[in-house]
Structure formats: C-alpha cells, structure tokens
C-alpha cells in the first residue's frame, strides 16, 4: 500500500512539476512539494537518494548557507536539487526529493542541499536521514514557532534519535547548539576573535552553564551569543574546533585543520555572518572529501542569494534591499548592529510586518528583544517605518533613545519612500520581512529611479 501511495505521489508530483515548467509557472514552491506528501505522507523516505543529502538548519543564516553550499557544489560540476527560496518545512524538503528523481524514481541529481526548519526536524529528519546536518546556531526565534532555545534543542535531540548515521557539523562558537546531544562524534568549526569587543545585546540565550548552573564568562564574542566561553565554576568550555578560521582578512580566510595544516579560502564579503558561513561550508566540503584548492575555486563562483540582498550604486547614493526575518529579535539586532558599525550617513526603511498573516494581530514581543538601541546613532539620519505595527515600532524607537525628528512612520508600507529625504545620505537600506520580497523590490526600484 505504501509503495502504491508513493508511486501515485511521485507521478502526481512529477506531472504537476513538469506541467508548471512547460507553462512557465513557478514550479519551485512548498506547495509543489506538499502535493506528493498529501498522497504519501512518508514520500521523502521512499524517494531515491542522490550521492549525499545535506540538511542545513539553525535559527539564523540558513537560507544564505544553503544557497552558498548549492552554488559551491554546482561550481564543482555536480547537479544539485535545492530549495533556494527559503521555504524549509516538509513541503520544501519533499520538493528537493521530488525534483531530484524522475518518474521511475531514479535519482538524476548528485546532491540534495536543503534548508530545513529546526523545529520541524523531528518530523522530517527521520524520513530524509540526511548524510550531513549543519547547524549554524540556535537562539530564540519567533514566539509562534521556535520560541526559546530549549524548545528547539529538545526537538533537534529527538530528531537525532532518528538519524543515527548522519554526520553533524556544529558551530563550536555557539554555546547552545554545540551541546546538542548527538551520541556520535561531531565535526566542529569556529572563528577566531574578530575583535568586535563584547557587544551587549538584550537577548542572552547563554547565560547559565548547562553543566553546573554557574555564570559562564566569554573569552570573546563575535556577535550575539556566538563566541568562546568558559565556566569559571566547573571549567566547561567551547569544544575544540576541527576547522578554525585563525585569520580573517577582507578577501580571504585561513582555516586551520585539526592536524595543524592551514588552507586559504576566498570570502565573498568579510561580514561576520559570511565568515561563519564560509568556514561552515569549508568544514562540510572537507568532511565530504573535497580538496582545499577545489573548494577555494568553488567559493569564488558562489554568490549571495538575490532575495536576501540586492544593491545598486547610484550617482551619489547606494541603495541596499535586505531581507530581515520578522519576529526574530536576534536577526534584527544583527542587522541593526551592522548599521551601527558604519560611518556613512544612512536612511533606513523598515517594512518588517509579517504580511502574509491574516485575521491576526501580530505580537510585538520581539520588538523588545531586538536592540533598536543600535539605531540610536548620529549617522543614522532617518528611520522610516511602514506597516500595520508602525505605531508600536515608533514607540520602541523612542524608548531606544532615537530622536523623534529622525523617525517617520505610516500604515502603508508602499508610502515609506515618500518620507525619504535624500540630502546628505550615502546609503539607503530597506529592511524587509522575508515575505515582502516583491514589495521591497518595488520600493528599491523607485529609489533607484530617483538616485540614478
């Protein structure tokens, strides 16, 4: 019966996918993946496997890392099935498998690289049994979804029970996920002290030693909770990394491996998140057996996904359209901090309501997890907020000490551009929710028209 259901799901799914492609419609979607799952709930478990299934998860940075790894593997000449569009639930993962097989259930791709939701892992990993599971970091996310680290870790630990043969690639600098109980030997990566000081954040997801209940001390923090720590009471410390970025320059990093050998890799940008992504991707490909020289070549061919960020340099002003997760204080704080560290004069448009929800009053808890205080800086000249919750954002900005004269806000996100004052501005940022790609791109183009 199960085989029959699978065959029906496969035929229906492939037929729909091929028809959509022929008609020029969007065949890459969660919905497309849910079709075979509706017919055969364990569709993923029956689908033929490629050479390797790679699952990327964690609270922040999944989409960028997934796309980055897929780019690198494609640069190696391999064929890859990847849910590049940031969908990461069962449907998106089923899509990866559906896309990687033909109607006879023969694998036609070399690799599946899939972004996976950390909370959903308990349902999906026992089906997909990934060969490699990469966990960027774990911290609180949307209060609706993955509200606190323990909630997520419990789910991941249950997921691990269903995937005993997966190789785990973990961030030694994340004091939450590095202690995931996996019952196997893990591969760890880490990054040197990047000299960012010890930036204080409202969110403190690692403030108590998991072994003795003491108050851990950071030896360094690179961002958020990410850094190397030691507990003064019991001596618990971050795991020793197998891959350690011991030097970070503007255009390359040097990664030391456990045997002491050091290899140089290019980096697309030197921002801290990309540095971590690069070391993590290197750790994966080295574990898979790729040579360092080849990996360096593949990195140089990879790029950041367009729907996460797009940039345009006008005559005097640069505009940057960037996706920032809604309802996630850690993700927002990271972006606010990146603006805080800039010297140029900045105007910021925020359209970060979760606009796909209906008949629901969005909660504002995360506004007080996010460090709006980073935006209280002289060179951040304008903050323009659009969307249903604009009045709540306005109050949060005021409580962060931001001058009232720098804040504009309006109900309709489409109207935000009208409030822009271009005089003396070097960079205009649009921070938009991940579901507002189309709208933010429209605003981005309106600004380009004005500044070119």
């Amino acid at each position, binding site marked *: 019966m199960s085989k029959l259901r699978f065959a029906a799901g496969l035929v229906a799914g492939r037929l729909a996918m091929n028809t959509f492609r022929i008609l020029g419609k969007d065949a890459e979607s969660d919905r497309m993946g849910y079709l075979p799952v509706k017919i055969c709930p364990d569709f993923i478990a029956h689908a033929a496997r490629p050479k390797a299934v790679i699952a990327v998860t964690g609270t922040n940075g999944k989409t960028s890392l997934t796309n980055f790894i897929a780019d690198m593997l494609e640069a190696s000449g391999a064929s890859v099935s990847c849910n590049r569009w940031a969908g990461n639930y069962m449907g998106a993962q089923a899509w990866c498998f559906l896309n990687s097989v033909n109607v006879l259930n023969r694998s036609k791709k070399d690799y599946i690289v899939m972004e996976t939701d950390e909370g959903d892992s308990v349902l999906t990993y026992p089906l997909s049994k990934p060969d490699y599971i990469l966990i960027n970091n774990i911290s*609180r996310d949307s*209060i*609706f979804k993955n*509200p*606190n*680290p*323990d*909630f997520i870790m*419990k789910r991941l630990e249950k997921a691990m029970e269903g995937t005993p043969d997966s190789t785990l690639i973990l961030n030694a600098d994340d004091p939450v996920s590095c202690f995931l109980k996996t019952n196997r030997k893990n591969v760890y990566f880490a990054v040197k002290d990047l000299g960012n000081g010890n930036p204080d954040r*409202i*969110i*403190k997801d690692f*403030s*108590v030693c998991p072994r003795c*209940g*003491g*108050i851990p001390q950071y030896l360094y923090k690179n961002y958020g909770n990410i850094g190397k720590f030691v507990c003064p009471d019991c001596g618990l410390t971050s795991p020793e990394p197998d891959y350690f970025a011991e030097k970070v320059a503007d255009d390359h990093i040097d990664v030391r491996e456990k045997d002491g050998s050091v290899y140089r890799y290019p980096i697309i940008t030197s921002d801290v998140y990309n540095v971590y992504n690069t070391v993590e991707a290197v750790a994966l490909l080295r574990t898979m057996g790729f040579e360092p020289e080849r990996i360096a070549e593949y990195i140089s061919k990879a790029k950041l996904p367009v729907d996460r960020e797009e940039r345009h340099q006008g005559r005097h002003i640069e505009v940057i359209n960037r996706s920032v997760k809604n309802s996630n*204080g850690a993700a927002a704080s990271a972006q606010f901090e990146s603006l805080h560290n800039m010297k140029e004069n900045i105007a910021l448009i925020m359209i970060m309501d979760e606009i796909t929800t209906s*008949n*629901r*009053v969005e*909660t*504002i*808890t*995360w*506004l*007080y*997890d996010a460090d709006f205080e980073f935006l209280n800086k002289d060179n951040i000249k304008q903050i323009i907020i659009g969307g249903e919750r604009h*009045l*709540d954002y*306005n*109050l*949060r900005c*005021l*409580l962060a000490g931001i001058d009232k004269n720098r804040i504009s806000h309006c109900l309709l996100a489409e109207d935000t551009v009208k409030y822009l004052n271009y005089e003396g501005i070097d960079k205009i940022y649009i921070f938009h929710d991940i579901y507002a790609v189309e709208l933010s791109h429209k605003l981005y183009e309106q600004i380009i028209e004005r500044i070119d």
Partner: protein
Amino acid sequence: MVIEVLYPELGSLYGEYGNLLYLTKCCPKAEVIRTNHKSRPYFADNDVDVILASSMLERFQPAAAEALRLYLNRFRELIEKGTVVLFTGNTVDLLGEYILREEGTREEMLGLFPYHTEIRDKRINSLLLGSFEGIKVIGYKAQNAQLFGKIQPPFIKLDGGCGNNRDDGNEGIHYRNLFATYMTGPLLPQNPLLMKYILRLLGHDDTLAFEEDAMVAYENSLREYEDPALSHDLIWHNV
C-alpha cells in the same frame, strides 16, 4: 527609587525587558539593581520599590524558586508592605505550590498562593483582552502551562483569550501591589494606562515617557483586540 530585577540571567525571554525599559524611562532617577540567582538579593537587607521577574526556560524554574526560597519571609514581608512586584510569564509558577511536569514529575515552588501549575502537551498562543480596575488591558500569552487551584485575588477579568486555564475567566493574581500574570512581552509599554496605575502606586508623577505615542499605539491595538472578527486564540501546536 530602587528597582530590583531578579535573576535576569535566568529570565530574559519574550521581550519582557520592555517592562524594565519603560519603568526606567518613566522614572529616570530610578536605580536598577540586577541580582543573579547565585547572589543575595538587595531586598534582603534593604527596602526596594519594585521587584521584577521575567519569563525563563522551564529548566531554570527550580533554581529560581530555590534562590528565592532562601529569602521567602523577607519577600513575603515586602509584598505585605505594598512593594510593587511584577512577575510575568512563567515566573507566575514560582509563586504557586508546585509544578506538575508533562512526564509526571513534581517540582516544589514557593507556595505563596494556593495554586499549582500543570504543564500540558499543547502550547497555547493567545491574545488577551481584559480589564483591571476599569483599565482595558491587552497582551499576549505563550505557554505550555495552565494554572489550577485558588488563583485569587484575580488580576485581570477576561474579555477574550485564554485565562489561567482554558476554563478560567480570569488571568493572574493581584494581591496588594503584587501583579503576577502569564502575559508575556512588553506588558507596560503596551498598556500605558496600567503603567500610569503603577506609577501612582509608587507615589511617582504618572506622566509617561512618550505618553502621546504610547497612547496612540495602545488605542490602535485596543481597537484591533476589540474587533469582534478577531480570533484571540492563535496557533496551537504540539511540543
């Protein structure tokens, strides 16, 4: 004015930092003392004006209860004296008798009030609309726990959303100047009239920081919460 924040290293979830932030903006001269669970609270030897505690991971609750139990008599004395105490989110559980975990284990809490907490397998996400002494209160609840027993005197009478448990029309405890509620997030910035009420309890000028902006945001949200078409029960999903 002295505001003591209990165990911030244990309890910093869900934006409840907003309560402290708004208090300090409205009372800029207030001294803030943060006490971790390994330290002797300032209130043990001194009078304080406000004691705050915020949502924490469930596994931290026994440590928090043990830490506070050492100074229970003094804590009770301060409550009786009228110190403003605000316990939000699952710190409400600390004030009850015990927590019954999903797997059946029982953890003893402080027993200041005759109720207990049961952790259920369903997570409740609910918008809350209610009233307290004529003030319309809005907020948000996210919990696996429900409270049972004598949960009195009540803090908020519900008009919408989930109360102490699925069958209770009240939310939280209000005893003298202690306010304990499972509502989470920035309760005070979201409820400027409640903030004013607390300022008056403190004998402080009740003019709010950014009062006009806070009131406009509150009134806008209140309209949404009072919309008959709005479902206050949000998403339920298994842990």
